[in-house]
């Protein structure tokens, strides 16, 4: 039995920079917004302020560096801190380069006039609060926070100012991916990015979130970095028969504390594919919840992490099978260099009546240095017997036999290792249908490796 460890003297403030005054200023700055929105934000702030910071005995934060989750020293980022030059992210791969919506420091900075099929809505959250209040009430942060960050999700709701709102009506297919940029600039800035995607019955859409900060733009190699606090969320809803593809590519500065929450709701015969690429941040926590709510629902959850330096990536996932004949397939791959640390904690839950569930969960850690640390907590809670549920976790270095095979063809060891490392990522990238997107993400990873 493991001994409970007493929590370290909790001298840190549970609200940090996000005081009641800061919140009041935030509300005042919003201008004319509906009363229900203000009420939700107030309730969320109360929840945030009431809940304690995570402690040693929180199973949901096992292995996390809790000292790193500190809320002091930040301010709500404003557009004044960004320049027009910063807002244009240079050298992006083609698939990610042209945003439909771009946000810089919590404010809209650019939007495209791209033509879209009738009825498709791609707008800002700020506008949708007025124009699509019912959809927002039904889907915005509407799912339970089950992965440990109830406090921070409430903080997000309290301070979120703007974000992307994507609505695809029944039977409509959007051929071109919708690209959203979220940019953070300026030291100690706090940003609260949000993306809400609703794909109605038999709709089809691909949405890409790119998270970036100025330190990545102006400082090749990321040698000097700027601290940010990013507290973001995305809500994905796939109605009956819908097909939703979501890609989140995170390239915050190396000093960013990032907390990101995903909720995915999958209805009957719907299919959601999500792929999260994690590159940046000092400490990045990503929570992902997939709820398979009706027969035929399928959620494919993919992630790639390129961890180096002293970065910590903390990924918590939950696949809940709430109905029979549902399927989920999770593959999270991490490569670790230097003194990097990763945590993968995943749980498959099969509810009592969710017979014929097919659930898979796999965490693969590629250890590329002597001091990297990988933690895996792959979990199952199964309450139905006619199921196929498996999980696996491995942590290992590059396979020496594969390395020898490449060397036996004349390829130098370092080149061989790089080929094999990219081969390791390909298993995830290959799941993407779009070759452009595949190439785009690969190019982001290459940039990280070159640094």
């Amino acid at each position, binding site marked *: 039995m493991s001994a409970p460890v007493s929590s370290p003297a909790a001298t840190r403030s549970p609200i940090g920079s996000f005081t009641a005054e800061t919140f009041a200023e935030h509300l005042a700055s919003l201008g004319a917004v509906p009363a229900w929105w203000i009420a939700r934000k107030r309730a969320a702030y109360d929840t945030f302020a009431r809940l304690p910071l995570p402690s040693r005995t929180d199973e949901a934060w096992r292995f996390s560096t809790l000292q790193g989750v500190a809320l002091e020293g930040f301010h709500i980022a404003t557009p004044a801190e960004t320049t027009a030059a910063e807002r244009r992210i240079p050298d992006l791969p083609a698939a990610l380069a042209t945003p439909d919506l771009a946000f810089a420091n919590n404010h809209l900075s650019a939007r495209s006039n791209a033509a879209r099929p009738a009825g498709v809505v791609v707008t800002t959250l700020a506008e949708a609060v007025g124009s699509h209040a019912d959809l927002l009430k039904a889907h915005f942060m509407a799912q339970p926070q089950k992965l440990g960050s109830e406090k921070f999700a409430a903080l997000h709701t309290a301070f979120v100012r703007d974000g992307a709102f994507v609505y695809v009506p029944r039977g409509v297919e959007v051929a071109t991916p919708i690209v959203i940029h979220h940019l953070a600039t300026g030291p100690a800035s706090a940003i609260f990015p949000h993306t809400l995607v609703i794909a109605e019955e038999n709709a089809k859409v691909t949405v890409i979130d790119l998270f970036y900060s100025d330190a990545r733009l102006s400082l090749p190699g990321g040698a000097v970095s700027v601290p940010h606090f990013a507290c973001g969320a995305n809500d994905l809803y796939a109605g009956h028969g819908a097909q939703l593809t979501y890609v989140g590519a995170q390239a915050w500065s190396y000093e960013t504390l990032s907390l990101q929450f995903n909720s995915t709701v999958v209805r009957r015969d719907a299919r959601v594919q999500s792929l999260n690429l994690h590159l940046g941040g000092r400490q990045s926590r990503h929570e992902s919840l997939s709820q398979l709510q009706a027969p035929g629902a399928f959620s494919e959850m993919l992630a790639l992490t390129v961890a180096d330096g002293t970065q910590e990536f903390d990924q918590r996932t939950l696949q809940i099978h709430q109905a029979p004949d549902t399927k989920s397939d999770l593959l999270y791959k991490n490569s670790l260099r230097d003194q990097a640390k990763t945590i993968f904690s995943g749980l498959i839950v099969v509810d009592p009546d969710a017979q014929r569930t097919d659930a898979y969960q796999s965490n693969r850690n590629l250890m590329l240095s002597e001091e990297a640390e990988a933690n895996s907590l792959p979990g199952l809670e199964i309450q139905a017997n006619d199921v196929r549920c498996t999980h696996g976790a491995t942590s290992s270095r590059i396979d020496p036999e594969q390395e020898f095979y490449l060397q*036996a063809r004349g390829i130098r060891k370092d080149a061989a290792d790089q080929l094999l490392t990219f081969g390791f990522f390909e298993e995830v990238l290959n799941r993407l249908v779009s070759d452009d997107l595949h190439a785009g993400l690969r190019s982001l990873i290459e940039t990280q490796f070159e640094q």
Partner: protein
Amino acid sequence: MSSLVIQDLHVAIGEKEIVKGLSLTINSGEVHAIMGPNGTGKSTLAKVIAGHPDYTVTGGDVLLDGASILEKEADERARAGIFLAFQYPSEIPGVSIANFLRAAQQARMAEGEELDASAYYKRLYAKMDMLKIDRKFTSRSVNEGFSGGEKKRCEILQMAMLEPKFALMDETDSGLDIDALRIVSEGVNTLKGPNLGVLMITHYQRLLNYIVPDFVHVMYDGRIVKSGDKSLALELESKGYDWVKKELVTA
């Protein structure tokens, strides 16, 4: 004209000695076959010449054109002209055959020199046609999900592309049906010539009907115990390895 000279080679894995004083000289243009029962060190010999890190050379030397290669890494030996066709080729997930061979070609070029992509693909497709390999294979991961025959053809394709001085073919016939065996052998026969020396390692005589050796050696307990021409292979086939063992005992 090149030579690969193995001099009184002793090889161990851990504490256990596997090759116990083996000598053999192969010149360009020659085809040698090493035959022998399982567990006599045939595959070890091929791997140790290619530089596999698990084996320790405890004595003797291996010379390529007069210079020892034992201090060289596996990739250096490969670039110097040693090619190992693996008995069990590794599966390399996520690395396509095209990318893999490009990397191997690139490694053979001087720093800063760029591979001519169109010439490379032209050559690659020609070799693939020769070996009856579907061009779609170039985008597949190396050996991943390949049948036994596909793996062996992929090995010969690499050999054709990399143009080694010496090819060590470790049980190339194992796991092949008769059609695959014919295709692979035709490939090797096409590549044979005055600039290539071949060392075939095989348990069965069957392969030697397709690739005719100039010399046949019988390996037993870490040594070559008998050498001859291709008729030795036929004699072995009819009399079995016990014949060699008995001869050894009486000697």
